[in-house]
């Protein structure tokens, strides 16, 4: 369903800060895959995700989603295929607007927007139903400004918004990294539930190896702009953090010590 071929990306070319981030990245996702992505800093995980999302374009290579070449499609145009949750809880929602207004914006993702009223009565009932699933009490606060919510609540709302119109692909960019451990677990469980209930295909970046093993049906490890380890099914289920560490050390040498990847 998603096919990334030979992707190259250099930041700040021809300057002292020149950085070759992606060096011929190849990745293929099947329908219904829930892939966790791990790798050290600068491995190109976020760059890959941002390129799928269209935040910036690759220098070379192609990204094909469900048979459509989206390599150079503007971000706002490909948004109709994608659900996104960001690392920063502030990023996914508009804080000055009401919860229901945020949901209404997401409900119209990929639809033509015109001069009809921005939010209808029937929708509000739908939103109440959807918010109940989160179990955070937000269903009684439809008209609250999103800025009043906690980081965890905002991420949960962003998740809901990402799945409100079923996306072809859900992109989760370390979406629990800014949360405290307990909230992070809750948001991860919600993510899994939403992915399962809607039968979504998802790509989730994480720094937490345990989470990477625990969630999803497939795990990839990136290093220096390439996929260096790709495991799924039975093999992934039996994976231990120790195995990942060994694998990581064998590709990266001794660099591991100064990395912020979490062991447990």
């Amino acid at each position, binding site marked *: 369903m998603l096919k990334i071929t030979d992707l190259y990306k250099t930041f700040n070319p021809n300057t002292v800060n020149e950085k070759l981030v992606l060096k011929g990245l190849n990745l293929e996702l099947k329908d219904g895959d829930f892939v966790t992505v791990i790798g050290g800093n600068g491995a190109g995980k976020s760059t890959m995700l941002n390129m799928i999302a269209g935040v910036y374009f690759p220098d070379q290579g192609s990204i094909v989603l469900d048979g459509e070449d989206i390599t150079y499609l503007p971000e*706002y145009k490909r*948004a109709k295929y994608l659900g996104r949750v960001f690392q920063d809880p502030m990023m996914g929602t*508009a*804080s*000055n*607007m009401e919860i229901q207004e945020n949901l209404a*914006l997401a409900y*119209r993702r990929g639809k033509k927007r015109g001069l009809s009223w*921005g939010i209808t009565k029937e929708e509000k009932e739908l939103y109440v139903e959807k918010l109940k699933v989160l179990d955070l009490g937000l269903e009684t606060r439809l008209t609250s400004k999103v800025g009043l919510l906690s980081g965890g609540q905002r991420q949960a709302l962003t998740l809901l918004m990402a799945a409100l119109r079923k996306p072809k692909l859900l992109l989760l960019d370390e979406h629990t990294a800014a949360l405290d451990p307990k909230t992070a677990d809750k948001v991860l469980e919600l993510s899994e539930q939403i992915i399962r209930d809607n039968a979504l295909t998802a790509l989730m970046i994480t720094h937490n190896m345990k989470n990477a093993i625990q969630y999803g049906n497939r795990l990839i490890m990136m290093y220096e702009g390439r996929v260096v380890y790709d495991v799924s099914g039975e093999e992934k289920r039996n994976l231990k953090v120790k195995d990942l560490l060994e694998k990581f050390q064998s590709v990266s040498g001794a660099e591991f010590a100064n990395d912020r990847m979490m062991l447990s």
Partner: protein
Amino acid sequence: MNIIMAMFGAVSQGLTWAILALGVYLTFRVLNFADMSCEGSFALGGSISAVLIVKLGWNPFLTVIIATLAGMIAGFITGVLHTKLKIPAILSGILTMIGLYSINLRIMGQANTPLIGQRTMFSIVKDLLPEASALGMMDSTLQTWVTMGIGLVFTVVVIALIYWYLGTEIGCCIRATGNNEVMVRAQGVNTDSMKILGLVISNGLIALSGAIVTQSQGYADVKMGVGAIVIGLASIVIGEVLFLRPWNFAFRLFSIMIGSIIYRMIIAVVLQMGLNTDDLKLFTAIVVAFALSIPQLKKNRMTVRKGGNFNA
């Protein structure tokens, strides 16, 4: 008596300038875009309206529509400079503003165009009413009432239109764009288009206001837009300070209209107290700078208080 007459005049003036403040609100607060082009489009609206009345004898009401359309074009140019050519927001506005200065001179062929003895919206409406003496008031009083009425009708219609438009699907996207562009793009909306759209509407309204003000004061001047953004901001912040928690968005818009009236009243009072008119702009700048810094000043005081508690 003198001060009451001055207040009376201030209310009518506030109502003719209110739409300028609403236009500035759309960019400054809704889009989070400090748009300097409003100074040029305000004078553009005035120039076009005056010239169409004086040189071509057009219907004053029609000239207001043409002025609005011209303002929309000015907003479009600022929008394109900023979104497509990636010029910083402030500079895009300044470029349009400076360009419009020459354009306005070209339109009028001189620095100002008086409307003495010409038909304006105000004279037309006044002619429909009975003679001032028959109503038992002075001619200038009737004039002020007419100005007030026309200003109020225009402002209320504009408020209704803004309220409706920002509630629509597109309007919601414009509001969200001023709030969080990343999120809006992720929801499949072209944020560049939303910014251009917001600037087009805002500058259209500001030119409309310029046309109304020109007809009300009886002349257009190429410099009439100088300080327009500050006057608009003054009205907005006065409205915000007076009504800290508006119970809905429509009321927030009305508070700007009230802010515009109160701004004119404050000006009338300080002028009565002997302030030189040359110092007015400095006075306004200080008032706006103070009002805009209130949130920060409050925050600083809270920090000091917290520190005090900590020591205690």
